[in-house]
């Protein structure tokens, strides 16, 4: 049986992971087809009808400006998922770009890179993101940049340690001996073999990215109104907690469900890719 099939079957046996995948699939559909699935325009205000509790016309109620909450939550899925993927994608790319040479060449380069990573890791991740947004100013793109940058050191470290290990293995030595260029070795031989921990880390990092971006949004440092980002919605809803708790409840629930499904998938991947025989 081929290796990929084994991994797939192991993953499928994990009920939580499968449940997570289904939920994530549903969220992805919401994100892609938000325009068609949302019953109302998420930006359409209706002040006469604001702070309305859930009802037959507005399934989740309306927010402080009368906008339909369900539509905003559905569009929020698009924003959060896009955000998660772009942030993690770029962090992954830069992390590999920095970590791979560090692990492969070692020596001075490794030292410098690790020092830089250590410095960035001396700050709690959210604080780092907050600092970057404090410099750049609030906004969705700046929030993405901030979260992305705060994720890079972890990837650099992970790639570096994987490469340190791989570089001693026979197949790498063999490639070197037949004269393959370093670039070729790194991309054609070592990188494909370092995918497993990177994939697991990335899945979990998308969850973290969504949480961090939502936190920035909640603090008012991320997506700005009227963008229907879940964290920002919670922040607005907070003022009306006493009279309209649904504005706080549902976006937060959406965040939790998204992050939960990603965590379940990540755990499932970790178990499925685990080389242990038991």
């Amino acid at each position, binding site marked *: 049986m081929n290796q990929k099939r084994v991994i797939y079957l192991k993953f499928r046996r994990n009920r939580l992971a499968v449940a997570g995948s289904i939920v994530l699939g549903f969220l992805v559909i919401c994100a892609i087809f938000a325009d068609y699935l949302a019953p109302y325009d998420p930006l359409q205000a209706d002040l006469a009808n604001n702070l309305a509790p859930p009802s037959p016309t507005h399934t989740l109620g309306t927010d402080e400006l009368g906008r339909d909450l369900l539509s905003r939550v559905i569009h929020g899925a698009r924003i959060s998922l896009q955000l998660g993927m772009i942030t993690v994608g770029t962090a992954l790319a830069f992390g590999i770009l920095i970590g791979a040479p560090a692990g492969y060449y070692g020596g001075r380069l490794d030292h410098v890179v690790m*020092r830089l990573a250590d*410095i960035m890791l*001396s*700050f709690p*991740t959210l*604080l780092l993101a907050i600092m970057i947004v404090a410099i750049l100013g609030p906004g969705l793109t700046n929030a993405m940049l901030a979260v992305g940058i705060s994720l890079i050191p972890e990837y650099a470290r992970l790639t570096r340690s994987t490469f340190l290990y791989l570089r001693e293995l026979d197949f790498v030595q063999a490639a070197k001996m037949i004269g393959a260029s370093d670039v070729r070795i790194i991309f054609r031989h070592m990188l494909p073999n370092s995918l497993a921990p990177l994939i697991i880390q990335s899945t979990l990092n998308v969850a973290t990215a969504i949480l961090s971006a939502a936190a920035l949004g909640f603090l008012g440092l991320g997506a700005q109104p009227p963008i229907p980002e879940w*964290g920002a919605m919670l922040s607005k809803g907070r003022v009306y907690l006493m009279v309209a708790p649904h504005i706080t*409840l549902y976006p937060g629930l959406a965040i939790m469900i998204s*992050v939960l499904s990603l965590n379940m998938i990540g755990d499932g991947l970790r178990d499925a890719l685990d080389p242990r025989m038991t």
Partner: protein
Amino acid sequence: MLGYVLRRLLATIPTLIAVSMAIFLMLRMIPGDPALLMAGEDARPEVVESLRRQWGLTEPLPVQYLLFMRNVLEGNLGVSIRSGYSVSYEISLRIPHTLRLAFVSMIIAIAFGLLAGIIASTRPYSLADNLSMLVALIGVSAPVFWTGLILMWIFAVKLGWLPAVGAGTLQHLVLPSIALAGFTTPVIARQTRSSMLEVLRQDFIRTARSKGLSEKAIVYGHAVRNALIPVVTVVGIVFGRLLGGSIVTETVFAYPGIGKLLIDGIFARDYPIIQGTVLIYALLFMLLNLIVDVTYAYIDPRIHYE
């Protein structure tokens, strides 16, 4: 042992310098005249000039950095634009609150996390185990500001048992620390469980069992101490997340700690405050990591003998 502590302390110095450089650069990267930024838009020209001299803002960057460090080491972190008080004063007013919150949450997280992890590991794959791990997964996935608001809604708004905002009494600490513990306890619980499972598999446990020791004695007397080592590392990581989460939690509960100070400062463009609080957070975090590392070295005998 002492040698290890000293070496570890020495190793933090370059990192400290690098971190201070990063924070120093952070402020100077904002577009605009740093003197005006530090003094505020409508400050009097004499104030702006004196700031220029004090922080050497017309000098080349390396000189500025040295002046910055000199000021910091003297305890001068600047003056808050918003309040007019010195930044050190503002921080000193609030840091006890943050520390209290952080430590209470941490104690809750460690206590419950360890307990849950140990119990789950002694009944692996049982209902109790699966249920608690599922709850742990949910806890780690829920954003802290959401749990905080829900707790606030249930216990402060609806039931009125606990205060929603502010600080000062023990009741004020309850909701924020529970919210914070909500996403830190699960991490400790999971690590404890997996660590315990590793340990319980080992031969020396089998030996203890065959000697006839009670399960309780085995678990608490032998297994736990050995399982604790990776847990200590995780506690260090968790503390970092806790600090980050405390910034958000303080905002949710209007809790007057340095987190709220930082956020208020960012919105007020109070750059001296921003710089000062970030510095304190970084110092706090590095200190915490140091303590964790030393604790780790202390309880892991393998490091002792290096």
